[in-house]
């Protein structure tokens, strides 16, 4: 078990290093890092000074080591737009995103698992068919379009909800609902098929032979076994959801990390983009590490492996 945790931890560290390498390579792809990292109206002296300071005339491996040192000491450079440390700009926008993402994720998990359960239980019935149909539809419909259609319906035509912004409880409804749709269909489908797989298994047959009631089989045995793949999937789907914040926050003018990334793209604020990508990637890596560790608790087969 300790071995398992150490191995996972090691892999997580390697993955973070991989992300750093990717950011480094992407940065060098532009040709001139100084132009990327400095405002467009920077003078030649400023550019020369930046190059000297960051050793951009040195060999690539040296540059990489310098880059890594900067990243590991949390020195990410200054935001070009705000003239403040990029990390500070990011952290300021973080809470709004965390709030929204957490709300959407919990919603997606609760709704997705419940609907998947209903679909599996009434397999072949109308509930199952409509849930499966909506899962396929959800996977095909672009979420940004659903968001806009929701604005058209609830904000423009019915005038029930505000079109955008983060002001009062009502303003959370549409962004959270739209964001929830990103992982919903996958969680629903996975829950359904995992439950069906356990229900058809030999040990459920043996539980019936023992005289265990259908309700107890479903809630105590089938659900618990089915949740293992669902947990694994949810970790991955949270990445999907984090990507979704970029689109959702842009549409609803939500003052979070996602809309900051788009603003930074438009104003060519590269240092901020760099930190944003690194921060979200690290978060997702840690999250998947947490999911792996959670398996240890839930699944005895891993606990003793």
């Amino acid at each position, binding site marked *: 078990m300790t071995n398992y945790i150490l191995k996972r931890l090691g*892999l997580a560290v*390697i*993955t973070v290093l*991989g*992300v750093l390498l*990717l*950011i480094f390579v*992407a*940065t060098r*792809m*532009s040709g001139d890092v100084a132009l*990327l990292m400095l405002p467009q109206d920077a003078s030649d002296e400023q550019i020369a000074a930046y190059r000297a300071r960051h050793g951009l005339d040195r060999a690539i491996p040296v540059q990489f080591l310098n880059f890594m040192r900067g990243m590991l000491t949390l020195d990410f450079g200054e935001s070009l737009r705000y003239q403040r440390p990029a990390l500070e700009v990011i952290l300021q926008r973080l809470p709004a995103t965390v709030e929204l993402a957490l709300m959407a994720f919990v919603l997606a998990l609760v709704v997705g698992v419940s609907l998947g359960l209903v679909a599996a239980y009434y397999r072949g019935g109308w509930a199952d068919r409509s849930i499966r149909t909506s899962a*396929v*539809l959800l*996977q*095909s*419909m*672009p*979420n*940004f*379009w659903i968001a*806009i*259609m929701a*604005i*058209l319906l609830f904000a*423009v035509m019915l005038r029930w909800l505000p079109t955008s912004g983060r002001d009062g409880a009502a303003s959370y409804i549409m962004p959270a609902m739209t964001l929830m749709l990103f992982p919903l269909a996958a969680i629903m489908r996975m829950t359904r*098929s995992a439950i*069906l797989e356990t229900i058809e298994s030999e040990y459920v047959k043996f539980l*019936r032979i023992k005289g265990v009631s*259908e309700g107890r089989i479903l809630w105590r045995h089938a659900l618990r076994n089915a949740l293992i793949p669902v947990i694994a999937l949810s970790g*991955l789907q949270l*990445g*999907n959801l*984090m*990507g*979704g914040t*970029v*689109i959702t926050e*842009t*549409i609803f003018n939500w003052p979070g990390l996602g809309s900051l*990334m*788009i603003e*930074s*793209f*438009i104003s*060519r604020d*590269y240092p901020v*983009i*760099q930190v*944003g*990508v690194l921060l*979200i*990637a*690290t978060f*997702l*890596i840690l999250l*998947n590490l947490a999911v792996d560790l959670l398996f240890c608790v839930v699944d005895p087969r891993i606990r003793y492996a």
Partner: protein
Amino acid sequence: MASTDMTNETSIQAPPRKRRYAMRRVFEYPIIPVLLLLPMVVCGLFGPWIWPHDPTAINFTVRQTPPVWLEGGEWRYFLGTDQFGRDLLSRLIEGARIALIVSTVTVTTAAIIGTAVGMLAGYYGGIVDTILMRIVDVKMSIPPVLLTILIGAVLGGGLTTILVAIILVFWADYARVIRGETLALKSRGFVQLARVANASDWRIFTRHLLPNLLPTCIVLITLQFGAALVIEAAITFIGLGIQPPASAWGLLVADGRAYLTSAWWIPTFAGMAIALTALGANLLGDWLRDYFDPRLKKR
């Protein structure tokens, strides 16, 4: 649940069933998915011969004409016009071309790279495999949209960014699945036999592995075709992809956002074009999966 139902004893005489089989015949072929995909393919290939108007022709006298079935609508502009008086239907047809190009190019490239890498990693294992799995981990930790922003910030927005971003996102998915399949095939008798018989690796790849991986490849290509469509639209929508005045479906939705109150039909129909085409690809993918692996059909 599985208890025997004795009341059914009387229903031994079969009900008239012919009709139901006739209905089932329809679902033996993927008619609905193909019907959903066909308009996009035809419009993408033959757009200039089909569109009723030049999609870029501006005509302010007819700006924001509603669709034909609404008051003020005209037959000339079946689905209405935009804020510059451009015909929406023609713009949708032009948008199909971008969608077709992006989806085809990205999915094909990703399939070729992904299959090659997945097969090598699965067959040889070792360092290739380790590196591949770490790359997949990295890819999984950066959401596609963020990866696009990272690449877009360096390359600038546009078609190239979209293509590079989607290929980067898709090839790893591909490689991961193919690697798993290859591992499973490797232990099967016919591959083992071929190795014992001293067949060259190249021969094992092309004669034994590839033909058996093909069904998986086809299913993945179809499903990713739909996914590429939606991602392309999303990237374009947030302004990282196709730039105006070109016409892409994602762009039409983005443009229409500003005119939600006065010209709702622009984002509505553009979104429907994306959704229905992607639905066609997803349904076709599901159908193909059942077709190649009937065991899964029950699910």
